[in-house]
């Protein structure tokens, strides 16, 4: 398949269509409104359904309704919008429905700013909503990877009957890069007749289905939560994804970084290598489940003197890096928020200040 040059936001919309997700509900918010603009044109062409909801709260329940009746459905938003969807996300998790949420992050807190950021790391990886919630969180570092993650998000959501979040920073949405939509990532929607409210006639069955999150009996609710917990444990066993960089030989420091920030760190690592300082990187591609073991192994490697969590926020992933490293070597954080992306030179300086 040939590559086409596309803006990240439009590529994300197209990727979902190629993945067979023909239901999209959204509310405009910078820096990802182009997804809704693109899909308002594209969905009618492919026989899909596009609707601009009255708020992100409403949108999250449009998603819940469509997911509950067994349809592939998704939305895209940015940080403040995701906060409003957090209630719906919790209900969707409780009712065990598959859906995909894309968060093209901007700076916070509050209205924050409209420029790229990674400041929703903790919100996303700690489940977003109330209750014992977790989402499978995929973090793309390029437009191509965003396409692939969106396409795989749907079967993953269905495998676990749990929402999946694609967590990109504003740069992923705004950047133009050549992309292709791999045919092998297309998947047929799973059969949902055992649980979805798609109508008894559709199923050809006489028993009805219920989509709900209320369990008034404490024993039943505990069992329900244990069932959901087992799904998260299965994700931890089966879905952890990460990429290593400059990791094969000996190195004196390890950088952990995700999304667009990891691309800057690559450049920094190349600069340091040219100067004779070997630094490795682990780039988590799944933020939940987190590649704890990979970060631990890389940090504990002989010769590694320090670990750096480099993020476009005020120090969020660093908590997971510390969990992974378990105090065996010092863990430092460097980052910026509000739209300024740390430069390769700043990353080099940060590492050099600790590792000579």
């Amino acid at each position, binding site marked *: 398949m040939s590559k086409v040059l596309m803006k990240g936001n439009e590529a994300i919309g197209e990727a979902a269509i190629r993945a067979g997700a023909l*239901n999209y509900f959204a509310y405009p918010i910078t820096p990802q409104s182009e997804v809704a603009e693109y899909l308002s044109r594209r969905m009618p062409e492919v026989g899909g359904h596009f609707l601009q909801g009255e708020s992100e709260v409403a949108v999250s*329940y449009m998603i819940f309704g469509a997911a509950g009746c067994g349809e592939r459905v998704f939305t895209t938003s940015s940080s403040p919008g995701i906060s409003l969807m957090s209630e719906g996300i919790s209900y969707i998790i409780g009712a065990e429905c598959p859906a995909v949420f894309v968060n093209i992050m901007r700076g916070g807190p509050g209205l924050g700013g409209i420029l790229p950021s990674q400041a929703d790391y903790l919100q996303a990886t700690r489940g977003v909503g109330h209750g014992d919630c977790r989402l499978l969180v995929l973090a793309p570092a390029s437009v191509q990877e965003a396409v692939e993650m969106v396409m795989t998000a749907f079967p993953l959501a269905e495998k676990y009957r749990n929402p999946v979040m694609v967590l990109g920073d504003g740069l992923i949405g705004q950047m133009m890069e050549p992309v292709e939509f791999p045919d092998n990532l297309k998947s047929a929607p799973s059969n949902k007749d055992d649980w979805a409210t798609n109508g*008894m006639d559709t199923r050809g069955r006489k028993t009805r289905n219920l989509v709900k999150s*209320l369990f008034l009996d404490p024993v039943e609710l505990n069992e329900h939560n244990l069932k959901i917990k087992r799904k998260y444990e299965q994700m931890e066993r089966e879905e952890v994804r990460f990429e290593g960089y400059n990791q094969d030989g000996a190195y004196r420091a390890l950088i952990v970084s995700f999304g667009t920030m990891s691309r800057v760190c690559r450049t920094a690592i190349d600069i340091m290598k040219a100067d004779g300082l070997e630094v490795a990187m682990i780039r988590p591609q799944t933020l939940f489940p987190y590649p704890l073991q990979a970060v631990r192994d890389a940090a504990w490697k002989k010769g590694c003197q320090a670990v750096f969590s480099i993020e476009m926020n005020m120090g969020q992933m660093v908590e997971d890096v510390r969990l992974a490293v378990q105090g065996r070597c010092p863990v430092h954080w460097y980052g910026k928020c509000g739209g300024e992306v740390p430069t390769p030179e700043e990353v080099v300086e940060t590492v050099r200040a600790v590792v000579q």
Partner: protein
Amino acid sequence: MGKTFQKPEALSDQPTHYCPGCTHGVAHRLVAEVIDELGIRGRTVGIAPVGCAVLAYNYFTFDFQEAAHGRAPAMATGIKRSRPDLVVFTYQGDGDLASIGMGEIVHAANRGEKFTTVFINNAVYGMTGGQMAPTTLPDQRTTTSPFGRNVDEVGMPIRVSELLASLQTPAYISRQTVILPKYIVKAKKAIKKAFTYQLENRCYGFVELVSTCPTNWGLTPVDAVKWAQEHMLPYYPLGDLKSPE
């Protein structure tokens, strides 16, 4: 000899959790009868609210989803837009629909969503213990308006049917009641009309049912009916407010 009276197929055998004299049960039965008569049980999806009717799905025998407080119209939109062949209705109380969910109901009605809403107006929050609702009458005492609803502080009760009828998008909007047998036949007719408009893909349908909550009104079921007749019906007059014709 054929049976002259039987339980609708759309209604389950479970005894309900509703208080004695509560009109939720009558409203359920009317919805079930309409679904049976229209032969749509196999393609209907109901949406339960958060309120006393949160467990409504226990009393029906077709697919159901349970919404968050106030969000049923958004869920119904998601289902109906992605599966236009399904028949969808929301069943909501006045706290659910007219307070926390006011945004969702207005926008769903204004978009002309092709689903149906059954709106239970009992002038209080039933489930949480009788707090003031947007529909609570002036001077009516509730657990959060112990001196009576002070309209200078919290405004006048909202007439939701009139509010929705003021929207320019075609819709069927009707206010009925289920407090006495003489009103029930009309209420059922309105519910059937609303579902029929949905089946014809004509318009959004909204039926408000003036109801009682004897428990939280602190009245016997009989006195509750009297109170509703004397106080609610004058403020919430019955009849069709809007039709797509």
